[in-house]
């Protein structure tokens, strides 16, 4: 830490603090509306916190003439409150009316918006009711102007009703000009030195005006006290629950942004990286920017597993990091979710909280793959990056997820490949032949073996049939005989490079590669069906 402060890195640290923490430029880059929303809430709330909630401690120490009821503080309190309220309104519009695709709203988001709204609205209501309250007026008059005569007090009250928003049934309009004059003089002598005109708290004053028809009843029912409790309790609830809510990002996000500005993954100690990652889980504000730009988002649209979206992975990862167990369905969903990722790093680039999501996925992925259920996706080209990083996984456990997936997808078809097995050639009722979207071009095959001859995978082995189960031409032949399941068990379909040599060189225009794709889809669908049956049979908790 000290080494950072006394080095050139301090510049980067300060830059990150000003541009990314205080000015939130990453949010600005995404959307002006979102940036305006967050700036209004962030600055409005921070300023309210220091000037209003901690006024006696912070503002008093900075400005010698501080008095909350004096301007500019009286005016600013309302301005800051209104800023937060405007931000909250934008947040509600964005979350509930704009229908932004993949902007998911969780209970935590609703809580965050709700608690802010309650704090601010109760604040405005409290000060609005206070302005209209006869009881409040009487208490103030007694304390600061108790020595005035009855007549002078009535004049003061008339002036307050006429000019300061007070509602009182003890004085009645219209007021004579000399009475108001007398009241104004009393006001200037005894009140004005520490009470700015109520109108300068413009929002509270307007609230009071709106409430004035009911002000008398509210005053008698003790609304000032009730609202005071609501305002204070909501503040304290917000504070007490802060560590467990997404509001924790007030602390964790700046730490993450600044740590990532100066931390070098390769040089940092692993324990420091781990600490940062745990903080990062709390730095997520669930703003969903990552999911808006996720490259794999159409995978989510196709499979409807929300854990495919990066923003939605954080919650289950947090649960796992806290040592909680997920149930079977959730585990399966998070394993698929974390693997259906193209490793394009876009989530990390756009995250306004500066979370190194890429690293988070990489670290969680291997553990989940090893411990979780078989995941057929590991048999796809999504595994490319896992292959590139294979040295990070111990060599003895690296192949396990692949073996697990292969087993889940192909095990039941493998015995069909036994060369000593007798083959039943009676056509199955209803047909076992692949149908949906399947090009039936395999029936053109006349067995010239060109496909197997040009296949670089076949050519790579001395004993290709032993390695691959069936060669491409044998697969076409099997399909012609209606032995689709036998073909689905061939390792060849998973070792296919999809280089299209076979298809290109087929004199009969058999779409060999495309047919291998279809066989893969059918083999994977078998896993999903098996799981559904298992789930229906009560396999799920």
């Amino acid at each position: 830490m000290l080494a950072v402060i006394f080095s050139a890195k301090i510049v980067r640290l300060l830059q990150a603090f000003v541009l990314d923490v205080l000015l939130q430029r990453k949010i600005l880059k995404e959307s002006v509306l979102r940036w305006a929303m967050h700036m209004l809430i962030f600055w409005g709330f921070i300023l309210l916190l220091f000037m209003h909630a901690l006024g006696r401690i912070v503002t008093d120490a900075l400005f010698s003439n501080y008095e909350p009821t004096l301007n500019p503080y009286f005016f600013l309190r309302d301005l800051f409150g209104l800023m937060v309220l405007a931000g909250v309104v934008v947040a509600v519009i964005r979350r509930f009316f704009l229908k932004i695709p993949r902007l998911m709203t969780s209970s935590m988001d609703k809580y965050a918006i709700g608690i802010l709204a309650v704090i601010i609205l109760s604040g405005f209501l409290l000060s609005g009711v206070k302005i209209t309250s006869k009881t409040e007026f009487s208490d103030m008059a007694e304390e600061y102007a108790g020595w005035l005569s009855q007549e002078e007090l009535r004049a003061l009250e008339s002036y307050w009703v006429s000019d300061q928003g007070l509602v009182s049934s003890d004085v009645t309009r219209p007021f004579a000009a000399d009475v108001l004059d007398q009241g104004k003089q009393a006001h200037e002598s005894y009140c004005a030195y520490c009470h700015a005109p109520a109108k300068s708290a413009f929002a509270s004053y307007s609230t009071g005006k709106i409430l004035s028809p009911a002000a008398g009843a509210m005053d008698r029912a003790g609304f000032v006290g009730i609202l005071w409790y609501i305002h204070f309790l909501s503040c304290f609830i917000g504070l007490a629950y802060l560590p467990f809510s997404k509001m924790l990002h007030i602390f964790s996000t700046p730490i993450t942004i600044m740590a990532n500005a100066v931390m070098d993954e390769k040089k940092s100690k692993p324990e420091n990286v781990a600490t940062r990652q745990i903080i990062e889980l709390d730095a997520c504000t669930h703003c969903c920017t990552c999911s808006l730009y996720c490259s794999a988002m159409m995978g989510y649209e196709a499979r409807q597993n929300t854990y495919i979206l990066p923003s939605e992975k954080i919650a289950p990862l947090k649960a796992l990091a806290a040592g909680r167990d997920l149930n079977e369905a959730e585990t399966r969903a998070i394993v698929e979710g974390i693997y259906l990722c193209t490793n394009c790093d876009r989530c990390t680039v756009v995250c306004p909280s500066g979370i190194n999501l890429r690293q988070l996925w990489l670290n969680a992925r291997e553990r989940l793959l090893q411990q979780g259920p078989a995941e057929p996706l590991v048999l796809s080209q999504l595994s490319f990056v896992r292959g590139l990083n294979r040295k990070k996984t111990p060599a003895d456990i690296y192949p396990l997820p692949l073996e697990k997936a292969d087993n889940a997808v192909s095990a039941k078809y493998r015995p069909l490949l036994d060369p000593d097995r007798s083959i039943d050639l009676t056509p199955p009722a209803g047909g076992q032949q692949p149908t949906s979207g399947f090009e039936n071009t395999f029936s053109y095959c006349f067995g010239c073996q060109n496909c197997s001859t040009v296949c670089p995978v076949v050519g790579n082995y001395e004993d290709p049939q032993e390695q691959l189960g069936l060669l491409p031409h044998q697969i076409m032949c099997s399909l012609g005989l209606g032995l689709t399941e036998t073909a689905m068990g061939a390792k060849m379909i998973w070792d296919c490079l999809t280089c299209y040599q076979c298809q290109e060189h087929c004199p009969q225009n058999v779409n060999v590669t495309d047919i291998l794709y279809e066989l893969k889809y059918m083999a994977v669908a078998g896993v999903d069906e098996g799981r559904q049956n298992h789930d229906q049979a009560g396999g799920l908790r």
Partner: protein
Amino acid sequence: MMRYSFFIGCQIPSRVPQYETAARAVLKNFGVELADIRQFNCCGYPMRNVDKKAFLLSSVKNLALSENQGLDMLVLCNCCFGALKNAEHIMAEKGPLQDEVLGKIREMGLNYQGKTRIRHYLSVLYHDTGIAAIKKQVHKTYKELNIAVQYGCHALRPSSVTQFDDPVAPSLFDELVAATGAKSVDWTNKLECCGAPLMGTNDALSADLFSRKREAAIKAEADFFCTSCPYCQIQFDTVQQMLVEDSAGQKALPSILFPQLLGLSMNIDPQTLGLGANKLDISKIESYLSKDKE
């Protein structure tokens, strides 16, 4: 002025960023304007093995985004190119899956009619810019430089779908390399797969396929591989480096991306071309360059 939507996919921004910067720098010199569409997502290629719907949805959404801006698409990656082309081909037929995909695309406020032309980077250079115009911009030529070009499967095949070049005797890439003065050598395995599609699922087989290619290229006395696809490039660069580290005494044959090769001869500075970003050192390439043409 030619204008395209620029499709860089997932591997380039995260693992081969120099391909993008070099390609942009070269295209700028030929007056090709590129539009970046931030809503582009994965082309669907990596999901194609296990989920046809996810593959099609991914591809078609990108095509629809480009189509809705009235732009043809310029693609840097062979696998993206192949996936997009195959998706276009599949969507040209009617079927329940196609209907479902179109329905989802419409829900997103997009419209897909298959109007966008999908173009590979090399095709744009070869057909739109033309060899003559390229030669004009080549200020320094390479002398006695042997290049083993890697066409890459998903651009070449299936040729009826990709319509990239003659699938058995392609010449487009060779001619582009020859325009820089370098010699495109004949080598066996030239049209074979780099092995990348099996990286992560069958590493041993993937490595075997690559090793055969390297042996063939070295036998043909190539000084460098030259690629036009991030997957081929990662296989020839990052993976080769891993393989060389693992087996002592093996000689690496470094790989240069085509826009890096062309860019140097066009006097674009090596920094912009990201020569230093390659894992295997390719700085030696500059020693083959002649002096500026008069």
